[in-house]
């Protein structure tokens, strides 16, 4: 079968049922007939919208990484939680393996994914550096399994419930920024499927290649 013919089909990521692609109307989405999983959706201003949301998410992520997330007060003694203190404490206690795993899962991978996405979208908008964009999209797909910032937020909530009886808790700006990151992530990488992104990539560079 030729490549162009294969492009007319899509396989559901959940149940692996093969579907023929159809053109969607504005605001509609295609669901798997077998398991109702989202296959693809109709996007308007795909790159502009995704780029705007990603930039806001990036700013929120920088705030979340830079400031105190929560403060606790036990009998007048304050302790604050921020990202640097987490890595410092783990490495200070000589748990290097845990430290490296946590460092990559909640700090390096989320920021690399987001930076790669922003750079890829800017380059796609400029219709330049096809190979670099391809490498960035591959990097995003490969790292997306390993970014655990959402699980980290759940862990903060679990830790807060554990401390509730012994200490007074105060939310700081980074906590709100972290919630914003998770919410925006739902609208960016969780909402947009990789097939949508790759199709946009192919459309953009096919047009620019044919113009040359």
């Amino acid at each position: 079968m030729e490549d162009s013919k294969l492009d007319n089909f899509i396989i559901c990521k959940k149940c692996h049922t093969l579907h023929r692609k159809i053109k969607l109307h504005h605001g509609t989405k295609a669901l798997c007939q077998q398991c109702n999983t989202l296959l693809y959706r109709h996007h308007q201003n795909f790159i502009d919208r995704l780029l705007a949301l990603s930039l806001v998410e990036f700013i929120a992520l920088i705030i979340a990484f830079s400031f105190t997330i929560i403060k606790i007060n036990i009998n007048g003694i304050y302790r604050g939680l921020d990202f640097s203190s987490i890595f410092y404490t783990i490495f200070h206690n000589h748990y290097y393996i845990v430290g490296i795993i946590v460092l990559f899962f909640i700090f390096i991978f989320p920021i690399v994914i987001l930076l790669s996405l922003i750079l890829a979208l800017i380059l796609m908008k400029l219709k330049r550096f096809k190979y670099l964009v391809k490498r960035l999209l591959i990097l995003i797909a490969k790292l997306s399994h390993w970014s655990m910032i959402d699980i980290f937020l759940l862990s903060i909530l679990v830790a807060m419930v554990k401390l509730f009886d012994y200490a007074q808790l105060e939310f700081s700006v980074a906590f709100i920024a972290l919630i914003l990151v998770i919410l925006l992530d739902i609208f960016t990488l969780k909402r947009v499927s990789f097939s949508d992104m790759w199709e946009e990539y192919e459309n953009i560079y096919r047009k620019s290649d044919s113009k040359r």
Partner: protein
Amino acid sequence: MICGKSMRIYTENQIVKDSLIRCPICEAINIDNGGEIVCRRCKEKIHDYKSISFHKTVAFLITAMILYIPANLYPILLTKKFGVVHENTILGGIMHLWEAGSYPVALIILFASVFVPILKFIFIIYLLVSTKYSLKSSKVDRHKLFYITEVIGSWSMVDVFVVAILSVLIHFSIVEIIPGRGATAFALMVFFTMLSAISFDIRLIKERY
């Protein structure tokens, strides 16, 4: 068929062939030649030879299962109170939370730290066994099972993150929380189960190995 704002599209039963495979990176459809496949769109290697993928998955799974033993036997958390050290294992911590009346948190930790890893072991073993022997389950069910295994994979890290957070916040002269040896084993166990799921070749679901 249109339902609300969603549109269902029909399956292509006439062309459903086991020779078509989805690239996990760019989701392009490729033709399976039975051996090592390079995606036609992103040019990334989709899968190794089936036997290599099978053995990789088994190796990572065995490593994870071995690490699960020290992760549960060694303390994941040490509490230093007035110089006296109390050790808490995962199960001990859950029981402590349950006795203290924090039922939702106890259930979250029980689900994330005990059930999720065990379920993942069972699912991956089942998928590997089903490639060797024909079991009474459809291909669709096995694909769904694999999808669930991939999705729930990272949720086990909750306990490791909670330990890290508590060790930062509870750091006073009279009381201090520090991570235990179990935390290292547990974090590595999660890492290897995720590697095991990622290295599993979905083509093995389609046929008997």
